[in-house]
């Protein structure tokens, strides 16, 4: 892995409060349990991880697990007792205060749980705060702050005081302040935990949108596993000061490192973590638009299907046809399949969360189609599969296949034979 793709690296971080901190680190390294350190309290024990550029890295743990201490070590608000933190190429642990301040100004900003806005300054001045400290001239920083204020959806509120805003809006100011500073790394300490559930969800979605457009590296602290699963590209689970597992949300859900993580993920809403891609199965067969109505009808007869997806040779999804439309077309002597292809295939992207598959799955006549980013049909999710995935056993559904009321084979045979008699198709094609 190339080093330039790493935005932040923590190596063997320890934070011990109280007396004899150095001794305590030695003891911890030698394997002494955390509760046998005498007077010292170990908040973070041997934390190591790397955060990729443009990644949302979530640190998840219950209160007292050391996650807030950990995040404060990443920008030097807490000194590390041992270990090192590297932001980009700069080591920020054990450096002079002045140098550390310069790195904070340029490289790493922070969003706080209780917003931590300056109550006596306007929204605009709050957003511009980081720029002010960077020494940007007033008109320049105000212009930039206005821009960012608009991005987070607070246009028109620039001259209000924070106390005149709701909690969600205040946190938008906090987010805007961090974004305006234009640092590579953004630390978010329980940033949405103090908000109402509805507002929280809205903010989470907005954060993902912003992340997609701005490509910041975000380190997000939360105690809410659902939030961690929703936001995180990767998640570090912390317990009693130690990182017990680092992995993608799916890793952690399907492959918990120990009982603690397993217990933890029990209550996770699977439908929000698992995606269409993780439960889809191979499409059994697709019809190419070149085969004509009779070919389509024959294929549906052989597959015992009442309808099938139509896709080009490169699997680009065009639409779907029903056997009844095909039958009518065959009877009418039609030779062009495209005229009876329906385009409302309702296929979803492979990254769609399971929770968002239910309604499309109900509406679709066929097993729900799944497309990749290029619009190619890569799989289908039959309704039974969806139900089985909810039960925690996606594999169980692989055998089950829907048989949604195909035409009786005899009817199809008769129609095809009739077509042979009229000379529309060869007898060979029917068999």
């Amino acid at each position, binding site marked *: 892995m190339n080093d330039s793709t790493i935005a932040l690296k923590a190596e063997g971080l320890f934070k011990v409060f109280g007396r004899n901190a150095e001794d305590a680190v030695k003891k911890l390294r030698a394997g002494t349990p955390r509760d046998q350190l005498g007077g010292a309290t170990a908040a973070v024990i041997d934390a190591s991880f790397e955060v990729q550029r443009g990644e949302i890295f979530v640190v998840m743990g219950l209160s007292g697990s050391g996650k807030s201490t950990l995040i*404060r070590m990443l*920008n030097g*608000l807490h000194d590390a007792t041992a270990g090192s933190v590297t932001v980009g190429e700069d080591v920020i642990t054990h450096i002079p205060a002045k140098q550390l*301040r*310069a*790195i*904070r*100004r*340029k490289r*790493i*900003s*922070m969003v*706080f*749980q*209780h*917003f*931590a*806005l*300056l*109550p*006596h300054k306007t929204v605009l001045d709050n957003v511009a*705060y*980081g720029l002010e*400290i*960077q020494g940007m001239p007033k008109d320049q920083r105000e212009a930039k702050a206005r821009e960012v204020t608009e991005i987070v959806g607070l246009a028109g509120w620039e001259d209000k005081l924070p106390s005149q805003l709701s909690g969600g809006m205040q946190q938008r100011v906090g987010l805007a*302040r961090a974004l305006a*500073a234009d640092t590579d790394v953004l*630390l978010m300490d329980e940033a949405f935990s103090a908000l109402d559930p509805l507002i929280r969800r809205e903010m989470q979605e907005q954060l993902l949108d912003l992340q997609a457009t701005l490509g910041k590296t975000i380190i997000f602290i939360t105690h809410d596993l659902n939030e961690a699963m929703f936001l995180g590209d990767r998640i570090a689970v912390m317990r009693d000061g130690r990182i017990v597992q680092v992995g993608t949300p799916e890793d952690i859900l399907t492959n918990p490192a120990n009982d603690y993580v397993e217990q933890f993920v029990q209550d996770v809403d699977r439908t929000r973590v698992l995606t269409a891609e993780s439960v889809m199965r191979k499409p059994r067969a697709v019809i190419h638009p070149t085969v004509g109505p009779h070919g389509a009808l024959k294929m549906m007869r052989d597959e015992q299907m009442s309808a099938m997806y139509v896709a080009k040779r490169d699997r680009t999804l065009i639409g779907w046809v029903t056997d009844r439309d095909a039958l009518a077309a065959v009877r009418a002597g039609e030779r062009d399949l495209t005229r009876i292809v329906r385009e409302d295939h309702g296929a979803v992207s492979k990254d769609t969360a399971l929770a968002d598959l239910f309604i499309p799955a109900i509406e679709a006549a066929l097993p729900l189609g799944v497309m990749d980013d290029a619009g190619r049909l890569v799989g289908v999710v039959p309704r039974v599969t969806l139900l089985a995935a909810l039960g925690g056993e996606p594999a169980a559904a692989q055998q089950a296949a829907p048989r949604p009321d195909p035409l009786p084979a005899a009817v199809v045979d008769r129609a095809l034979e009739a077509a042979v008699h009229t000379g529309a198709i060869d007898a060979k094609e029917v068999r």
Partner: protein
Amino acid sequence: MDFRIDFGQWVTDALTWMQTNLTWFFDLLRTIFLGLYDAVNWVFSTPPTLAVIVVAAILALFARGWKFGLGTALGLLFIVGVDQWDNAMNSLSLVIVAAFLAVVVSIPLGIWAARNDVVSAIVKPVMDFLQTMPALVYLIPAIALFRIGVAPGIFATVLFALAPGVRLTELGIRNVDKEVVEAGQAFGAAPGRILRQIQLPLAMPSIMAGVNQIIMLSLSMVVIAGFVGAGGLGGEVTRALSSLDKPLGFEAGMAVVVLAIILDRFTGAFGQKRGLHLIKRLRERMGASANEAPAAPAASEPQTADARG
């Protein structure tokens, strides 16, 4: 058994040493005290009495509204009515000088104590000492070091009034939301900047409460300072006490009460949102007048539109 701690003797020795070796220092202080006192007293005593009352009433009106304005005017007229105006102005000058000096010393000390635990640990017992020592006791060294007059009065008053200023400043700064201070640090602000932009503004209500307390304690001390010849209302009260002059005692006493209430409400106004609001409004008004030129055409536009319609 002959157990006797010669504490008094030690203090006396220390004072004697200071008297002989630091004369220049205390003479300098005395000159500063008297200079300040004369300057402030000149401001209050030179203009006609009525002018002072009117100005005070108008300021009161702005600070808290018409009720306070009216009350201020009536209270000051009462002082004139009982023939204590000059004494009251002398006492007021002494309070203002003493309170000013106490603020100048106590706020930086409070800030230092808030930022340094060692300083805090030393300052705390010293402040306990200053605040609980009977006020009259301060007058003894004050006379020894500054001779009779206004100067020892100011010195004793400053010592006595110091404590709440230091305490409330330290408390205010230490109670500033930790996260907001962290926000300043996280964005790379230097400690001095965090103090100026975050800690002091957010601690302002507490600091202003401290200033208010300093002024109130100064006022109560001013009366006691009458014993060392500081004059003013204190002098009158002392005189009334020694000759059991009931009318004089109560007239001078009421004048102190009136001054106390007026000063308390004034400083209280600045400690509360209302006072800060006032300052902000004044600032806005000044800003608005600066922007008046470009704003004027915009304001006249609707009128022309009306005329056309």
